């Protein structure tokens, strides 16, 4: 349509009106910090000598890109995110599907699986450290009663990574369940009836009806979980501090140390900016695939 009608203008205006409160809030609270962080990333800015007199250009970025430890953290983080989000998604989806169709006991199951989410990550870390204590922990003791050697949950590099993954899954898997279940419960019933009569098995219904119709919700869920997983730091902080060695040194914890232990904010901001660019790229890809469904 060539010209913009008044109604479209009204729609647009209304859209912005709805968006305004959120935008104002965001602008008031996070705009300045983001801009500040962006600017700071171009300076040799240390909290010990705060000030913008030492312009570094892309120096901080170059340094980060050249920093083996940082790159290692990025790599570990990638593995972590894929493992955590992947497993949580599959498990969460299965549970959400089961729960959606269950007739009895829904509330009980739901309450149970909500509990971990409501527990503070710090506490989660501490509790799991206790439970997984190699000599004093209940898990190794139970394994021992069936003749399994004590597992060095957090002390061996490979194991520690998977232990952290496991604990994060325990803690966050319900996030997926809550969202996916909400998505499932909002799906219309008719296409399922049609599919059943068309002869679709439960799996085929899942594949041909549920998945495509859930795609927007799935994409958003994966996206949000991915972003949160990349930001994981409390659990690492409590459970391993990135160790043993550098086996669990996730990027957020790395940046945290750069900012608040080394007090080297310029570099930390540059790293955060690089992270932002990567995540934004991933988000754009996911968003596009979501739009393909909507149109």
């Amino acid at each position: 349509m060539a010209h913009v009608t008044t109604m479209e203008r009204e729609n647009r205006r209304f859209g912005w009106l709805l968006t305004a409160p959120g935008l104002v809030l965001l602008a008031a609270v996070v705009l300045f910090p983001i801009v500040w962080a962006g600017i700071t990333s171009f300076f040799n800015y240390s909290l010990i000598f705060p000030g913008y007199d030492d312009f570094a250009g892309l120096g901080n970025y170059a340094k980060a890109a050249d920093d083996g430890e940082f790159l290692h953290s990025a790599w570990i983080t990638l593995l972590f995110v894929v493992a955590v989000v992947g497993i949580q998604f599959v498990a969460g989806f299965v549970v959400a599907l089961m729960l959606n169709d269950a007739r009895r006991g829904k509330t009980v199951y739901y309450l149970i699986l909500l509990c971990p989410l409501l527990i503070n990550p710090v506490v989660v870390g501490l509790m799991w450290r206790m439970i997984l204590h190699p000599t004093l922990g209940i898990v190794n003791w139970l394994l021992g009663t069936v003749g399994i050697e004590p597992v060095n949950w957090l002390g061996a590099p490979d194991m520690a990574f998977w232990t952290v993954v496991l604990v994060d899954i325990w803690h966050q898997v319900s996030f997926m369940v809550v969202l996916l279940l909400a998505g499932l419960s909002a799906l219309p019933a008719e296409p399922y009836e049609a599919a059943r009569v068309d002869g679709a098995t439960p799996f085929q219904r899942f594949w041909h009806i549920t998945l495509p119709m859930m795609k927007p919700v799935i994409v958003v869920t994966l996206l949000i979980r991915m972003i949160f997983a990349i930001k994981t730091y409390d659990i690492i902080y409590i459970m391993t501090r990135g160790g043993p060695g550098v086996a669990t040194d996730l990027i957020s914890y790395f940046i945290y140390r750069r900012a608040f232990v080394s007090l080297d904010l310029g570099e930390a901001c540059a790293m955060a900016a690089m992270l932002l660019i990567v995540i934004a790229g991933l988000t754009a890809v996911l968003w596009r695939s979501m739009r393909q469904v909507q149109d």
Partner: protein
Amino acid sequence: ETVNILMEAVPDTTYIQQLLPEFEEATGIDVNLEVVNYAEMHTKLVPQLVSNSGSYSAIVVDFYWVGEFFKAGWMQPLDDRIAADGFDTSVYVPAMMDLVGQVEGTTYMLPFYNYAMGLLYRTDLLEDEANKTAYMDAFGTELKKPETWDEYLQQVKFFTKDGSYGVVNQGLRPDPIAMEWSNYLFAKGGEFIDDGWHATFNSPEGVAALEDYITNLNDYGPVGAASFSFDEAFNVFSQGQAYSYITYNFFRAAVDDASGSAIVGKGEIMGVPGQTPEEGGSLNGAWGWAIPKSSPNPDAAWEFLKWVESPEIAKKRALLGGSATRLDVFDDAEVIAKYPQTTALKELLLGSHNFPTFTYTPQFVEVLGRELSLAVSGEKSAQEALDAAAAEFDELAIKDGRQE
């Protein structure tokens, strides 16, 4: 008026809390102790200190932040106030004043409490007759509390039997492992730096210390000690599963706490033994009181500091179980009577070594912790790990202007 102080949840904080009504009554100043997890204190303090209007009247400073806080100019000098009020700083253990009192000749802090590290060991195991004979048979020497590092290592090996461990370590990076290993370094006769602030801890002594550490951790300690923080490690010890544990001196009191310890009355602390009976290998550690530049009411804060570090209150804190920094308290008969280990703690403190404190101490602890952890997990050799840490240390020292 209100004095706000950020503190860590440790026994000493609780003791002050108990005594606060006295202060509030005497001065009319309210005191708010904001208690957070140790790990978060630094994170919480930094923005407060960077900002020109913080909300903390006084703060407590861990020794390894001292260089950084000093360099950034976040603390107010106290000399004028000390002089004006005739506050006596000479009673403090000198090592304390070095660590958390003066920086480059200016007094910024008053030492609050010390947490020098020591060797917790099991007296009951040493006294056990069967052990004594077995030990005599094996090594031809009497089983008694170790006087030298090598004797200690021998005992560690000896007590690793029957599902018990000779030692339990805190191998979590960065500070637990870095602090613990420092004792090994000192015990082996090594030092972190030379006078010119060059790293020397990758010397043969350092490498040997790390190898000892790895052996202890992997061969004579429980599975998973590489990931232990002091809590896990102490739990192993307090459940009676290990003979010894090198740790902070305040765990001595926990040994006798029946709600968390199965070895009440069976543990004692001593300085970490060195190469000879005369030398000690302990690492020193302490907290100091300071008034930040951003303090909204430094005068009231000073009132509080004066009060809390006054001889009476210091003694009262010690009597409640607090950890002393003043010689007069260490020597106080009443205190010794109530806590016989006071003398041992004093000796431990006097024989302890300081960690290099400079602007980048926290960063160095990170580096050291990481490299030690890599060595423990077998991804680097002891020499490689220490060389890497030493190289980074040198860089930091150069950055800080300590080194040419």
